[in-house]
């Protein structure tokens, strides 16, 4: 703060900012990586229960959310292309679509979780506790992993709103768009995590 007052020009290093974002992405990869490790261990130890668990999950909503996230990844990438070309309107539209899709994803998640919780299918829930250990672990991991992922979607929504405002206010433009670029990187990370969550919980059985 007091530094900036002293500086004749504000230090700006987009490449450094991007490197910082990548390093942050690596910490996220390791964080989710450990959850995948836990999943691998328990799937290895409870193959049958995990197989049956996979059949209890709603494949339709899972597939829908996968398609949504992939589309949103493309639109945020297109928003970056647009800002690079100086097309502010396009950038705002693409970003708006991304934001909307992120919200729809969470709404779907709400219904998906809601349906299960209603039947007592949640950690500590009666219906779940009656089932075997493997199933408890499967659904424990299901809630933890998709839950932490959903938290990241929520943070992404916050970032999108901020970046959207900044573009509108011309703070982000064709020669200074690192905030949008880094938000995009973050969103692709969230997408990549889902790319693995989807088959692990919804497909293989």
């Amino acid at each position, binding site marked *: 703060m007091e530094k900036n007052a002293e500086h004749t020009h504000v230090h700006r290093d987009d490449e450094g900012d991007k490197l910082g974002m990548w390093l942050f992405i690596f910490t996220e990869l390791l964080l989710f990586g450990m959850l995948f490790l836990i999943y691998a261990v328990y799937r290895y130890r409870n193959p049958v229960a995990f197989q049956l668990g996979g059949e209890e999950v709603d494949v339709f909503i899972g597939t829908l959310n996968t398609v949504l996230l992939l589309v949103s990844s493309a639109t945020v990438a297109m928003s970056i292309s647009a800002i690079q070309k100086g097309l502010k309107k396009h950038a705002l539209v693409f970003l708006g679509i991304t934001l909307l899709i992120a919200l729809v994803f969470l709404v779907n998640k709400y219904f998906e979780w809601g349906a299960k919780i209603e039947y007592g299918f949640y950690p500590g829930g009666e219906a779940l506790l009656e089932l075997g250990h493997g199933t408890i672990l499967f659904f424990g991991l299901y809630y933890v992993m998709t839950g932490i992922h959903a938290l990241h979607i929520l943070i992404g929504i916050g970032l999108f709103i901020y970046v959207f405002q900044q573009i509108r206010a011309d703070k982000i433009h064709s020669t200074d768009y690192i905030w949008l670029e880094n938000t995009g990187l973050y969103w692709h990370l969230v997408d990549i995590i889902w790319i693995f969550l989807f*088959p*692990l919980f919804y497909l293989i059985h």
Partner: protein
Amino acid sequence: MSQEKSHISSYQSHVFVLLALLALTAISVAVTTLELGRLDTLVAMLIAATKAAIVLVWFMHLKFDNKLYAIFTVLVLVVFLLVLYVTFFDYSYR
């Protein structure tokens, strides 16, 4: 700074990448109905890895950006896979 070199991808290229990802998703869903047994997991993981690689290379610009990011990403994945491998020294032989 450093803006001048950055690569601008066209809208079309993003759409192509998206179509590829959607196609792989469709294949992945279709394959699970085939009941391949143990191969099921392997195929699903291979498809997911391909999709993740596509996102990394095109959407996340690893192909066009400073090669440093690509090198780091590979190293991080190697570290993670080694951790997974070493952990299974325990679980596979218990």
